[in-house]
């Protein structure tokens, strides 16, 4: 890839680096820019990207559970309609009582994602409007998308099992068997048995 080709991507990074304190910034590949920031920088960075750089479309917002680091990583994905570039803004919050700023005044649709993340992971968003209960109904256990929620055990306890599918295996074991790949220790620790 020539320097020229990544011109637009580099332009965004240069602007951001001048204005904000970025923990990490890189061009993943063509049309894909990634920055990591502190939670308090989220709103300024997103606003700047929207108003000054043309990243007007909010595509997605998701959450990753880094249980090994004791942190959740929340990813905001923006899209530039003319230059066709994806812009990823990542931030990390602690797993226990993590709070993030609410961004639904920038893009209304972020409200839906934030409510889902609140329900599925238990991250609080400051001043988020909407009922606590979103997709799940009468859920009284740990937020189910957390990696320390043991789904298999929960299913065993709650639902019935019809015999005949005892060969169902953990996908990770299956992959390991097929490819002779060594599983990292942390993956073993949270696997089924």
């Amino acid at each position, binding site marked *: 890839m020539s320097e020229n080709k990544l011109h637009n991507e580099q332009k965004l990074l240069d602007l951001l680096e001048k204005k904000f304190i970025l923990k990490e910034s890189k061009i993943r590949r063509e049309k894909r820019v990634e920055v990591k920031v502190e939670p308090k920088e989220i709103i300024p960075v997103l606003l700047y990207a929207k108003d000054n750089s043309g990243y007007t479309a909010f595509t997605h917002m998701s959450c990753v559970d880094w249980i090994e680091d004791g942190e959740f990583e929340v990813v905001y994905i923006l899209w530039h309609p003319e230059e066709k570039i994806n812009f990823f803004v990542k931030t990390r919050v602690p797993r226990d009582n993590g709070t993030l700023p609410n961004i639904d005044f920038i893009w209304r649709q972020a409200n839906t994602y934030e409510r889902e993340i609140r329900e599925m992971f238990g991250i609080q968003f400051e001043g988020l409007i909407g009922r606590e209960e979103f997709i*799940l109904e009468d859920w009284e256990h740990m937020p*189910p998308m957390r990696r320390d929620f043991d789904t298999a055990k929960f*299913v065993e306890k709650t639902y*019935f099992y019809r015999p005949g599918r005892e060969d169902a295996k953990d996908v990770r074991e299956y992959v390991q068997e097929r490819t002779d790949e060594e599983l990292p220790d942390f993956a073993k620790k949270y696997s089924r048995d």
Partner: protein
Amino acid sequence: MYNDKESQKIVDIIQNYARKHSLFVLAYGTGCGAIEIPPTMTSRYDAERFGIRGAATPRQADVLLITGYLATKSLKRVIKVYEQMQDPKYVIGFGSCTINGGMYWDSYNTINVLDKYLPVDVYINGCMPRPEAVIAGFVKLQKQIQAGKADGWDKYKKNLDYYKENQKKVITNWVMPDFNW
């Protein structure tokens, strides 16, 4: 005349014959399998030649199709719908998710074995079953009805405690009126 056993038999045969040729299916889909219903109903596979057609409300329907995985949230609605339907009513479990959980067997919010919660008359396996399989399932149900063996609704009444116990095990916040008929 109705006290007469022999003539009751004849009435039953006529009744069952009429029932089996007018199966009104409730237009309600739960999982991905519902996508196979439009081709089954429309001109290519034309289920109406078997007397199978859609009904808009539970009170007009005879057959409840559970088309795939059932989240505990929709189980609540399905039970409500099932209890509103008029006797005789039949349940068809559609796709492997209803049989043993299918590919969602270890999901935290889908039930695995449908017949613990509702009486199932016919299971159609496959993920998802093709329209031919769906029609084969319906034909099987018709045979059961003709033979007077499709009595899931009767079993539901008689074993209500068993079904309610299982249902309440997954529906923790029970806010529905109890079944009456």
